[in-house]
């Protein structure tokens, strides 16, 4: 069991070291890609074998080595922990990563040879970091993986570092997530002193549990792009599409949810934390949904859709059901990755991200369009597709926990999802193209992973039972009132969108809604962050820098200057004229004589 887990975690890092260490391999172009994909696929196989080998409910198997000493023996250890949750998540991550890497062989073929090497090196590093996070035996190692994942996201988003916008996006992503990580780090440190160890199960009821839970959730909000820290996700689309598919759809953004699932005892111990989580999730669903409606760039739409779906998972967790969260996470991973890859194929073919320019892809790019539609169906949650089951399960959990506010928002979200997915599908695939295009073709190496994902997107729903088993919960599909209303709403949204964008009548309505659209598109929050950065931090930094150079340093210089000036001025007492010199001698004599007389008086008569 353990060697398998070790291979799953350490395999990719070996790949990374190979690529980083051997410049010849790195510059060999697609060969590097093949090596890295091979390693990824190997870890996928190992992960599946591992998953199968884990009996539900069995005690977790942990293997650790000492890492940081404290008073003679180690308080911090690194290692792997294999149990239901980690096996599931490990398998999902390995699957998506291999799919994306294989897909990238096609997508990145046109790049320069060294940059391909660089791309796959960072892909392997990402896989390693993610697996470290997933198989982490305690919160500390999770934090290590967590930060490395943030680093890989920074590197991969900034893959096209020549583009200034990509550079800005990469740094923005890093800063926002690092800002949220401050919370996680504080939580970690608080845990060390209050609870004594970083283990997942370590819980100390009372205010510490709530505090740590909230701090961990703050970290999760950053990485999983929850409102108000979601601003970096849309910009992250600057990275290559496979990266968006891997990181910003399936794995990285899901890390936050996974972390909450992992530290579930903490959240369970504090009701307050759960409420906060539920509300944040719900709000994110609606906000992201609304913004997604007005985006023109297909990748931005999918990005906001990811935000929204993450909102669902978080809301499910808030409702007290980690199984729902994890189940929706796995399904979402499949269909969202599929959507991104399909969109990637479309962009690859059309060479533009805007959905208006895509138009009428249905005819010219049959394969990719079909796969995209499958993904879209799963996203909307049409019955039969995986999305339906997990979203329904989440809504059910919300209803049971009687969190009516978040439940209402979630339902609203379903409608919004239906609308924006419908809009994209109609505009991008079924409208008449602006200019005619012949039949386009997507290479086999790209379609194969997409088809695998499509299959999973459909079949995913059936995984509910086994996942629940691994997590120790229970799930069996049954039709629920929430499920039905959700489906109706979804179809309603879809219909509205097709009506508006498909037929003439709808176009007038679009003009009416334009101002609202403009308002949402303007991104109130972005401007808030911009001003916070421009007016807040930079001004404070400017003041500190100025203060240091011209006040603290100024005082130092003033002292030096006054000494110099003083000595320059006292130089003048050296007049060079003899009478003055003699005067000094005589005056000094008088003073000393007087002093002598006085001291003589005081000691008078006291012969020793």
């Amino acid at each position: 069991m353990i060697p398998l887990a070790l291979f799953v975690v350490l395999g990719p890092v070996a790949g990374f070291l190979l690529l980083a260490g051997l410049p010849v391999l790195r510059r060999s172009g697609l060969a590097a890609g093949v090596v890295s994909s091979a390693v990824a696929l190997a870890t996928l196989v190992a992960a599946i074998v591992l998953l199968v080998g884990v009996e539900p409910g069995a005690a977790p198997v942990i293997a650790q080595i000492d890492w940081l000493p404290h008073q003679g023996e180690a308080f911090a250890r690194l290692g792997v922990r294999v149990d239901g949750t980690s096996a599931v998540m490990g398998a999902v991550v390995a699957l998506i990563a291999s799919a994306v890497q294989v897909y990238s062989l096609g997508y990145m073929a046109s790049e320069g040879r060294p940059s391909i090497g660089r791309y796959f090196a960072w892909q392997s590093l990402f896989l390693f970091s993610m697996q470290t996070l997933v198989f982490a035996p305690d919160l500390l190692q999770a934090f290590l993986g967590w930060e490395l994942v943030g680093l890989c996201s920074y590197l991969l988003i900034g893959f096209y570092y020549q583009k200034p916008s990509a550079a800005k996006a990469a740094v923005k992503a890093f800063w926002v997530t690092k800002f949220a990580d401050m919370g996680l780090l504080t939580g970690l440190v608080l845990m060390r002193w209050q609870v004594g160890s970083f283990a997942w199960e370590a819980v100390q009821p009372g205010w510490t549990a709530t505090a740590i839970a909230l701090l961990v959730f703050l970290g999760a909000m950053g990485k999983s792009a929850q409102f108000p820290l979601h601003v970096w996700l849309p910009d992250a689309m600057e990275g290559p599409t496979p990266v968006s598919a891997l990181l910003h759809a399936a794995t990285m953004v899901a890390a936050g949810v996974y972390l909450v699932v992992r530290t579930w005892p903490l959240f369970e111990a504090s009701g307050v934390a759960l409420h906060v989580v539920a509300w944040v999730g719900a709000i994110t669903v609606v906000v992201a949904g609304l913004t997604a409606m007005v985006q023109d760039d297909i990748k931005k739409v999918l990005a906001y859709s990811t935000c929204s779906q993450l909102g669902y998972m978080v809301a499910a967790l808030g409702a007290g059901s980690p199984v729902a969260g994890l189940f929706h996470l796995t399904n979402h991973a499949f269909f969202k990755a599929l959507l991104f890859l399909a969109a990637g194929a479309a962009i690859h073919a059309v060479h533009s991200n805007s959905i208006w320019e895509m138009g009428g892809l249905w005819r010219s790019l049959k394969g990719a369009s079909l796969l995209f539609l499958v993904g879209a169906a799963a996203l909307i949650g049409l019955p039969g597709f995986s999305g339906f089951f997990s979203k329904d399960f989440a809504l059910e959990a919300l209803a049971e926990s009687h969190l009516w506010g978040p439940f209402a928002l979630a339902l609203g979200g379903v409608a919004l999802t239906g609308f924006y997915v419908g809009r994209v599908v109609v505009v991008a695939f079924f409208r008449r193209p602006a200019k005619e295009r012949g039949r386009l073709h997507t290479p086999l190496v790209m379609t194969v992973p997409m088809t695998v994902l499509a299959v999973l997107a459909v079949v995913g729903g059936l995984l509910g039972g086994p996942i629940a088993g691994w997590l120790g919960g229970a799930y069996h599909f049954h039709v629920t009132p929430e499920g039905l209303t959700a489906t109706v709403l979804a179809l309603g949204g879809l219909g509205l969108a097709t009506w508006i964008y498909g037929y003439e009548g709808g176009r007038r309505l679009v003009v009416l809604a334009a101002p609202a659209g403009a308002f949402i598109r303007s991104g109130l929050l972005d401007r808030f962050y911009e001003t916070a950065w421009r007016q807040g931090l930079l001004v404070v930094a400017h003041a500190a820098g100025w203060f240091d150079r011209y006040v603290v340093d100024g005082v130092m210089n003033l002292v030096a200057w006054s000494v110099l000036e003083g000595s320059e001025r006292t130089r003048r007492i050296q007049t060079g004229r003899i009478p003055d010199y003699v005067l000094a001698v005589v005056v000094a004599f008088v003073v000393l004589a007087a002093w002598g007389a006085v001291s003589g008086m005081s000691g008078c008569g006291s012969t020793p």
Partner: protein
Amino acid sequence: MTALLPLLLPLLVLGVILLVLVADLLLPATDRRAVGILAAAGVAGTLAASLAISPSGEAFGGSYVMDELTLYLDRVFLAAAVLGILAAIDHADRHFPTRQGEYYLLLLASLAGMLVLAGARDLVLLVVAFETAGMPLYLLAALPKSPDGRSTEAALKYYFVGAASTAIALYGLSLLYGAAGTTRIAALGAAPVSPLLFVGVMATFAGMAFKIGLVPFHFWVPDTYEGASTPFVAFLSVAPKAAGYAALLRILHGGLLDHHALWLPPLLVLSAASMILGNVIAIPQGNVKRLLAGSGIAQVGTMLLAFAVGTAEGVAMLLFYLAAYVFTNMGAFVVQSVMGEHAASDDMQAYRGLARTAPGLALAMLLFLLSLAGIPFMAGFWAKLQVFIAVWHAHQAALVILAAVLAVMALFYYLRVARAMYIEPPPEGAVAPVVARPTRVALIACVLGTVGLGVFPEPFVRSALDAAALFLGQ
């Protein structure tokens, strides 16, 4: 004959004086350089003798004594004299060849005065020796008769301040004699404490402080150093100060140590003033000689600190400081005499890029400057450190901190010279200054002294401690 054994060293110097006189007469007017070499050899021989002999007790009914203190001070004077003469040989031969015989005569006369002064236990002998040490220096300052009249002006200032101080000193001594009833210094302690006695003490101190160059009697120092010939200033900046301290040691420590509490405060004030004003004078100076003058005043202030605390340790550290000061300060002035000669001006600009044109000379000057600043591995560091320890031990912590801070401030102007030498590039076509053989010998001796005392101070510290302990009878 053995009664005169304690006076061996002054007599030897007298012998050298006679030799110089005779040589000066016999040698043709054009080639008087040999006189200098002869004088140097003679004094060097006396120095060797001083290292060989051990203290040999009193003479003339106790008015003169050759004890450890006298021997230590004599060695300091002789070392200063040897270096002074060596440095002057080339300079004198070039600037005032016809008068160089008299130059050495006057210098040796002053040296003889100092040697006697070191062991004087009688007021009369002390004052005569003090004046014998002092007066020839006025003449030496004026001897070059430099065409621009600067040496005359320097001598004039030195003379007038000196004359006023001598009158004050004599007045003080007369009061001391009156109060104590005898001219034996040892009996001074027994005199009843009266205002008259202490007016006398203070007057004497004021009269002698002029020669040490303490503030406020220091006004002549910068001008005289600037005007007089640099090799002479090398001697002037060390030997008379040591002579001044020798006299004060004999009077205040030898005689009036029991009333230490009464004469301590004025001295502390003067030492603080000297340290502060010395640095203030030196900081803005462009002229290296005036800079070294200022630094000398600051150093003397630090020495007074050790002198004032009145403990055996304080006196010992003063003695060690003087020894270190001989090599360091004279070394610096010898380098300045070479540079002044080379660039015909005493300005700091002459040093520009010296590190590249004459690395050896630059390194020597850097060593002397660092030692003056009190940087470790140099004699100056141990000197300052030991003084700080002694003064700290005598519960004058505030003054030690003041001295330490001023020492750091002093580094500013020492490093300005170092900067000129090492950092600024040499002017085009700059050629290395030519260093005559005797001056080179003097320089090497100074460097060895400065670094030797810096790296291995133990023996010197040991002998200073013994001298002080025996002198104060502890």
